[in-house]
């Protein structure tokens, strides 16, 4: 039956059924009902069927209503300003996957979506409901977008996801399977979710409580710790990273004796990030025993005597005994000891020197790489800005760009311990000296939008690269970052770079035009970002 419903007042459904049967079998085999005499049988059948068809259609009535869905929960956030709503629709309409090739002058709108979502979330707007399907599709396709997209999409998206299997992920990705977390102030609700919830719900609950009160989360965890599975213990333990403090030491010390090696290692790592912990003190003793200052040489020199064995105490404190393939056991153990020892140990051990002076000391017998790398890891783990600064050195130092003791990856992590302004300043200095070819990783840790000096350093370096005659796609990574991270206010400063320059003789053919195109896209994207942010301004109550 293809009709909305059976016609209620159809006089004779049986007659219609007979008609269909006769039509199916053929009038040669079956005489149709109600044949008027004098009409050929097939024609008579068609006559009757035509009347019946129109009668059936004209007699259609609505069907019974099915169980209506429960209305979506209220979204209390204010609606997006109209211009921002249009922008969102446009950003969402720009699906990736339109043939590769040269990027041309047009901005990559999809790349702007994360920034748009972050700003909209900051300002607390609600999406227009009809954009929810596109938002959910975007979140489905790109896991990196997912948290921001789902936050922005809000409660109605979760309601919608229940109705469409394609969007199930939104139920999993939202804490509590779509239901919001219980009131954290209600101990009964918290206890119930902690006891009965799914693993993801429990992790979300623990994290939420931890960020409000570290002790409460630890106490909740203690109640069930002994009965949790090893994988779950690992994840729960990991949530203690947030708000880690001296109060956690007793719990972590106890976890050092855990049955699971991964749990033990994580507990040790967390303890070593607490410089005042007993574990840190034990590691300090061990590490200090390996490092000494040799005054007998012309200049004071650090000497290293790596441990000869990994004893049970070391293993209990998280030192992994078995070295990975290709690494010497002793240097492997040594690295772990130094990494876990509080950095405060070293000035006392090395003649009262500052971190800067210590890093400058020569190290005997090729141990410098191992020692500095371990200090880097310690500085990152202990978030020690002074040591990070010392290990980073001057951005303009000749070895800063080369294969020095400290790799770019380590530098990026060290930069993470510094404040945003200092970080940007260091990277700007680095780019000014070394250019852009090594800067990508370092730029990635800088705060967005880039500070004025950093942005200028990047643009100057791009300009220098252009003048040198290379192709812009050698810098496409940095270009892409610049499109997303440069302060939109810088757009007007770039105007001078939009012209196609005269080509020097030794330049790569056509490079000038490609550069003009690349800068064109940069400027276009910056303008677009400026417009995007303006549109997301909270409208003034008086209207414009």
């Amino acid at each position, binding site marked *: 039956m*293809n*009709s*909305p419903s059976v016609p209620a007042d159809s006089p004779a459904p049986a007659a219609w059924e007979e*008609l*269909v049967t006769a*039509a*199916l*079998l*053929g*009038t*040669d085999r079956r005489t149709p009902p109600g044949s008027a005499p004098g009409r050929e*049988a*097939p*024609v008579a059948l*068609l*006559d009757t*069927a*035509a009347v*019946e*068809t*129109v009668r*059936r*259609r*004209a007699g*259609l*009535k*609505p*069907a019974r*209503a*099915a*169980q209506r*869905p*429960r*209305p*979506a929960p209220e979204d209390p956030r204010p609606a997006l300003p109209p211009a921002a709503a*249009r*922008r969102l*629709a*446009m950003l969402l*309409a720009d699906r990736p996957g*339109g043939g590769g090739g040269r990027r041309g*002058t*047009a*901005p990559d*709108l999809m790349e702007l979506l994360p920034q748009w979502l972050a700003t909209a979330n900051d300002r607390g707007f609600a999406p227009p*409901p*009809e*954009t*929810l*399907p596109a938002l959910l599709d975007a979140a489905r396709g790109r896991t990196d977008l997912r948290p921001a997209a789902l936050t922005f999409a809000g409660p*109605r998206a979760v*309601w*919608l996801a229940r*109705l*469409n299997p394609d969007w199930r992920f939104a139920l999993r990705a939202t804490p509590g399977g779509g239901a919001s977390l219980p009131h954290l102030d209600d101990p009964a609700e918290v206890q119930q979710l902690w006891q009965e919830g799914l693993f993801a719900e429990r992790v979300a609950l623990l994290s939420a409580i931890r960020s409000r009160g570290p002790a409460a989360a630890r106490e909740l965890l203690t109640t069930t710790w002994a009965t949790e599975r090893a994988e779950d213990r690992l994840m729960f333990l990991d949530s203690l990273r947030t708000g880690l403090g001296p109060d956690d030491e007793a719990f972590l010390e106890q976890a050092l004796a855990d049955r699971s090696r991964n749990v033990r290692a994580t507990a040790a790592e967390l303890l070593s990030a607490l410089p005042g912990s007993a574990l840190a003190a034990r590691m300090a003793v061990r590490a200090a025993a390996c490092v000494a200052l040799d005054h007998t040489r012309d200049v004071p020199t650090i000497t290293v005597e790596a441990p000869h064995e990994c004893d049970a105490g070391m293993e209990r404190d998280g030192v992994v005994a078995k070295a990975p393939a290709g690494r010497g056991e002793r240097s492997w153990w040594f690295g772990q000891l130094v990494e876990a020892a509080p950095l405060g140990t070293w000035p006392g051990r090395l003649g009262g020197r500052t971190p800067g002076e210590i890093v400058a000391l020569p190290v005997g017998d090729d141990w410098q790489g191992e020692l500095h790398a371990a200090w880097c890891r310690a500085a990152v783990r202990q978030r020690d800005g002074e040591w990070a600064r010392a290990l980073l050195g001057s951005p303009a130092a000749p070895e800063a760009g080369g294969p020095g003791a400290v790799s770019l990856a380590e530098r990026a992590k060290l930069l993470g311990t510094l404040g945003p302004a200092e970080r940007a300043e260091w990277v700007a200095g680095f780019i000014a000296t070394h250019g852009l070819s090594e800067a990508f990783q370092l730029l990635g840790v800088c705060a967005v939008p880039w500070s004025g000096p950093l942005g200028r350093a990047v643009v100057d370096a791009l300009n220098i690269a252009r003048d040198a005659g290379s192709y812009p796609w050698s810098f496409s990574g940095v270009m892409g970052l610049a499109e997303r991270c440069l302060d939109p206010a810088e757009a007007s400063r770039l105007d001078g770079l939009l012209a196609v320059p005269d080509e020097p003789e030794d330049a790569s053919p056509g490079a000038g035009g490609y550069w003009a195109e690349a800068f*064109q896209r940069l400027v*276009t*994207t910056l*303008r677009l970002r400026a*417009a995007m942010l303006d549109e997301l301004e909270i409208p003034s109550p008086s209207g414009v």
Partner: protein
Amino acid sequence: MTQQGVRWTADQVLAMAPDAASRKAGSKLGAAGPWSEAGSTDEGTVWGLCKGSGSKPYQTVIDIADAAGPAYKCSCPSRKFPCKHALGLLLLWAGGEGSVPPAPPPDWAEQWIKGRRQRAEDKRTAGASGSSTASGDPEAARRRAERRAVRVTAGATELEQRLADLLRGGLAGAEQAGYGLWEETAARMVDAQAPGLAARVRELGAIPASGPGWPVRLLEECALIHLLDQGWLRRERLPDALSDTVRSRIGLPASADGPPVRDRWLVLAQYDTADVKLTTRRIWLYGADSGRTALLLSYGAAGRAPELALPVGLALEAEVVAYPGAGQLRAALGEQFAPPEPTAIRPPGVTTAEATARYGEALRDDPWLDSVPVTLDRVVPTPDGDSWQLADADSDTALPLTPAARARPGLWHLVALSGGEPVKVFGECGHRGFTPLTAWPEGEGKAVRLC
């Protein structure tokens, strides 16, 4: 009128795009970067230079204020219409970021605009002075129509014979006969200059493969073709209006000759359907003062969008002229007095029971109608097993969605818009179910396109 008043939204601009690829390409160009010397006038002209891959930038100019709908010109080689540059420039203008400042038009833009307006003016005066010249010699036209009627009669008679043969042997045989039988019959109807019959016959071919219940559908459609054949063969005995309806269903040409109705026409929906040769665009209008609903049809060659484009949710002051035929909603757009503007008008709605009753009544004038345009008030999109329905918020009745509507992304826009609360929905209601085309939220809020 100020320019701000006619400035479109990005949605409206994108509604003009001939296809998804143009929409995307246009979106990317809707940023200041590649454009230079862009400007606009209060009269609704927008122009700019767009840097492309070549050395010479493309010249793009758009006349939005033209009474016959927006007109575009671009020096790019694209065959798409409007091209991505025109869309991009309109988006830039719609964005209102000051990238398209008011300015006197440059020569190249002004020449085109002036030429266009002059031609439009000439056409109008010519049309007013001597409209009879277009139809040529009335006697020759009458003879042509007679010859064609003879051929259609021959076609209808042959089709009746084929239908009788089919019913004599049984529909079960049609399943094995497959597509070829119908394709050949359809070709015979094309030869008979009865395109309406040809299209119906071609659709018969798809029914045996259309899933459970196909014999019922096949019998229904055969019976309605039979009814149309018989209507044609006895057209002299039909009332004039029904006879006109039969002629239009057969596919004979007619011209819109009803009295012009001037109104504020709300654009309810615009959607395209395409086959290998032709893109058909349907635009539903609702007259705010007359309460009438009218359908504009326009056509484009395969892959090209028809030129007429009216953004959903806007209203335009214009004359609309009906085509002949009882219960026929098709009309032609006559003179436009102002470009489309945003409006708060919404069509009044009915219940689901009233909607089916309206379809039933419409069949009295035109038994071949598949559906009628209807606005439903206060309905809730409701899942019903694997399917969906629109359920009245205030009673226990509902209209199931058509299979086509269930497969469209617009369904999810509708469900998201509703959030389980009642919405107002315009669409097509018929024996296959309801196809939603546009929806409005219960409170304030603009029209949301679902197609």
